[in-house]
């Protein structure tokens, strides 16, 4: 037995010792190589490999911050952030169902002997499964609890049946899988307001709350379908001040987080869609409103889906912006503008502005037509975009509209003449039905003429012939210089930090003179051009905001008013570039008295306000609209007459001869003044007694 065992362990063939040694050393060398490689990777390359490993197995998801709020001067919210409840599907959790559906589709295709495209079948399976879950969601949130067979409560419970997003959007799904595979897929983007076009009857907030409550209380919370909330921009006053506020749009370019760990800097960053300002204050103050992003560090699966959250840093909300606008006056201005209609009943475009005289803070700045920024805050339909475009709703007429100021310019023409001494404030000129300049008769707007007219009467009745005569005496250079002194060639809403709106007010302003006319190749300046300029016609172009500032400057006895839409209670009332108006007290008093008489007995007598004496100047100018001659109605002024506090300007783009400054634009200013007079809290203290008050 023992011998047999020894035989068993003996090799059947003799082994050569050198061969054993070679094999031994080969194995040793191989092991040494492996160990050296391991040591090299562990000790030398470890940092690099860790970064590589992290980048393959981890990702950073940037979380958009909540935008800052926009308030009016009284703290009323103009733009805020609303909760948007979205229904989302977790695709990794649905993988099993989708796979089963895919196999079903595959079997069916093979049974039908039709061509099999795996991608198409997979997409079909995804859509089928997602649609199934979407139907379940709607069955919960859209079906009131009621006795089977009883009459529908739908009418009573709101137009939930009108909701869109009942079908899975295949294009959105493809885009999602291409760009945001790791994030949940959105089945219903906004459960509160599911119809972004607003074409259907919009559901009330109660409808939205009911949908959310039904989902929360009835839909299983541990399934693949989730209710997620995020923040969207909301404008609680709808289209009010839309041109000033602007709107926001989706962006993939989120603000960088303030705190981002070094270890995650190099990682792949996935960004949720954020919001960025697209117009108005939202764009101009985007840097301060947008805040800074937060981030989440996730481990990810080999398929690219998020697996587990490793670390989270919350985003920081943006800063708030306080506008100088008074919401009540703004709403009144817009409502009153909306009442101004053409003979065919269509609303006439226009603008209305009210300024606090001492500080230049804008209390109301309305432009019509406008738009509802709420409908632009989400996914904007091209139909709504085109509709705004067709109405001319994008243009902020108050700051970007360029118009001849018409007879409101007569105030500046008069100041130029008084300063140059080409007319005395009490000088009476004979004003007939027309005035001949060269070989052309320049008409008076009253065919009878006004007879003897002095400065006060000229401003009250808006006499053209007085201005032709005085303008020719003064000359184009002095008139143009005076217009420039009042800032009619300067862009507004611009400060050292930039512009308060994306575009400064008054791009393309024209204060014409001989050099200008030569520059545009229209020939030499003629006396007829001066006559036209003296009544605010011809080449002269300005904006309603500029004319509101002229009114404020006259009220303050200065030449410049620097308007602003930003509220600052500590504003000192100094206006950059302003200088005294340069009139003697008796001259300034006559100028103001003329504007007061305009309301008391002149062209604005139809818009008097009992108990609120105010000063104004009407204007009706001609312009071409779509190639047709039309009229603009202007109305500028300040109130009250004594110790004025606010100045205003209203412009209406009329269509025919029925448009007049006092009759068409005046009622808008009257409504604004009435609202201003009824405001619950006073504005800052009125300006001190004006220069020249004592002389009156």
């Amino acid at each position: 037995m023992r011998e047999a065992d020894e035989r068993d362990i003996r090799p059947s063939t003799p082994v050569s010792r050198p061969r054993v040694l070679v094999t031994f050393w080969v194995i040793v060398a191989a092991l040494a190589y492996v160990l050296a490689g391991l040591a090299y990777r562990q000790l030398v390359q470890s940092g690099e490999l860790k970064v590589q490993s992290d980048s393959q197995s981890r990702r950073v998801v940037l979380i958009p911050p909540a935008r800052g709020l926009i308030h009016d001067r009284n703290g009323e919210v103009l733009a805020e952030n609303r909760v948007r409840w979205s229904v989302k599907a977790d695709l990794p959790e649905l993988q099993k169902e989708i796979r089963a559906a895919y196999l079903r589709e595959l079997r069916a295709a093979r049974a039908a002997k039709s061509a099999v495209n795996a991608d198409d079948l997979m997409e079909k399976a995804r859509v089928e499964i997602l649609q199934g879950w979407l139907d379940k969601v709607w069955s919960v949130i859209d079906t009131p609890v009621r006795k089977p067979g009883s009459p529908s409560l739908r009418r009573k419970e709101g137009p939930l049946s009108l909701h869109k997003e009942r079908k899975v959007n295949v294009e959105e799904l493809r885009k999602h899988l291409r760009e945001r595979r790791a994030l949940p897929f959105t089945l219903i983007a906004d459960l509160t307001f599911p119809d972004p076009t607003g074409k259907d009857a919009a559901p009330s907030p109660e409808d939205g709350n009911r949908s959310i409550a039904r989902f929360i209380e009835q839909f299983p919370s541990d399934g693949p379908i989730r209710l997620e909330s995020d923040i969207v921009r909301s404008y609680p006053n709808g289209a009010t001040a839309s041109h000033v506020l602007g709107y926001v749009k989706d962006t993939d370019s989120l603000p960088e987080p303030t705190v981002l760990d070094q270890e995650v800097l190099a990682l792949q960053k996935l960004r949720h869609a954020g919001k960025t300002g697209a117009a108005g204050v939202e764009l101009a103050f985007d840097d301060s409103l947008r805040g800074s992003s937060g981030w989440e560090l996730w481990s990810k699966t080999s398929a690219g889906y998020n697996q587990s959250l490793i670390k989270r840093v919350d985003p920081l909300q943006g800063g708030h912006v306080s506008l100088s606008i008074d919401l009540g006056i703004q709403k009144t201005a817009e409502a009153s503008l909306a009442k101004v209609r053409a003979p065919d009943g269509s609303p006439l475009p226009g603008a209305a502005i009210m300024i606090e005289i001492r500080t230049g803070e804008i209390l109301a700045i309305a432009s019509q037509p406008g738009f509802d920024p709420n409908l632009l805050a989400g996914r904007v339909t091209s139909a709504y975009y085109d509709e705004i475009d067709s109405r001319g709703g994008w243009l902020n007429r108050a700051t970007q509209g360029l118009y001849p100021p018409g007879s409101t310019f007569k105030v500046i023409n008069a100041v130029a003449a008084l300063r140059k001494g080409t007319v005395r404030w009490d000088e009476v000129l004979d004003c007939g039905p027309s005035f001949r300049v060269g070989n052309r008769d320049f008409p008076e707007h009253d065919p009878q003429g006004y007879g003897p007219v002095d400065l006060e009467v000229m401003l009250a009745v808006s006499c053209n012939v007085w201005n032709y005569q005085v303008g020719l005496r003064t000359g184009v250079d002095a008139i143009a210089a005076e217009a420039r002194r009042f800032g009619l060639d300067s862009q507004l809403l611009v400060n050292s930090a930039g512009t308060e709106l994306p575009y400064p007010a008054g791009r393309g302003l024209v204060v014409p003179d001989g050099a200008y006319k030569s520059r545009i190749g229209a020939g030499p300046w003629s006396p007829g051009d001066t006559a036209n300029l003296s009544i605010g016609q011809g080449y002269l172009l300005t904006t309603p905001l500029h004319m509101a500032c002229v009114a404020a400057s006259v009220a303050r006895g200065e030449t410049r008013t620097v308007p602003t839409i930003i509220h600052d209670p500590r504003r000192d009332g100094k206006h950059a570039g302003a200088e005294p108006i340069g009139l003697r007290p008796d001259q300034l008093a006559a100028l103001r008295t003329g504007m007061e008489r305009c309301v008391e007995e002149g062209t604005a007598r139809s818009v008097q306000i009992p108990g609120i004496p105010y000063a104004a100047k009407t204007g009706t100018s001609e312009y071409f609209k779509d190639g047709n001659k039309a009229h603009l109605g202007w109305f500028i002024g300040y109130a009250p007459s004594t110790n004025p506090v606010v100045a205003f300007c209203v412009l209406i783009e009329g269509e025919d001869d029925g448009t007049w400054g006092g009759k068409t634009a005046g009622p808008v200013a009257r409504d604004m003044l009435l609202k201003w007079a009824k405001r619950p809290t006073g504005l800052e203290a009125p300006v001190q007694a004006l220069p020249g008050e004592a002389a009156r």
Partner: protein
Amino acid sequence: MNRDQQGAKASYVLLTLVFLLWCFGPSVVRRFTREAFTEFQAPALELAGKGRDLVRYWELRSRSSEELAEAGRDLGRINAGLELKLLEMKNLAEENARLRTLLSYGPDPEYRTVVARVVSRDSAGWWQRITIRKGRTDGVRPFSPVVFGTRVVGRVAQVHLTTSEVDLITSPGFRCTAHLEGDEQRRVVLLSGTATGSRGTALVTNVPTDYSPPAGPVGDEAKVLTTGIGGVFPAGLLLGYISGHPRTTPKGDFKEADIAPARDLHSLQEVAVLVPVYPTPGEQLTESRVDDFR
């Protein structure tokens, strides 16, 4: 291989087969097995509950006659108070019925009440789930609210033949919409359970930043009430009280606050299940695809 080894091998094979069947078998098998186990366990639970009742009975019987007389007097006073309340309720019900007749207003009742004893608490989550001694045979259905008086205890999560499992409001699986006392705009906030192994609390989120609980005496916290618009809970039931001051979330867009349940969940012995007369859409959905959510 001897007989013992063969037996051991067979039991391993059987165990493996059962395990594979559990993992890869159709969901209906798993569901049946689970239900069968619960139903098998139910009589034991019921017996244990009744045993506890019996113990309590004998405990009371063993007390001295003085104690019993004192307890009897206390009960008499409580009984008299309840009799008065009953009379008051009866008068109100009669007045209600008279007004309904006068106005020809007779909507159907929305809920049916099923009173049930608590037989156990789920040992896997003491604060999260309780088992009650009423089930499918008593008409209990999933999603039904469970209350104690006008205070919400939770909602039915699963229904078996004679027992049901109830998610307490402190359970992470519990969620409902709520209104906060002092919010005149009655905005909707979200309440969900938070406690896992900790003392029972819930959390309200999505509280508007301008909300502050009404100022009141110390200990008089703001109430959190059901909205009644979700289709499950009737409106105005007490969910709990705001515990501490609402805190602003780091994003600054909302506040959130801890909620102390309206009822001490330690001492629950009896609850009432409000079974909706007509099934809710969510209930039908859950019943039809119960395995989708597991």
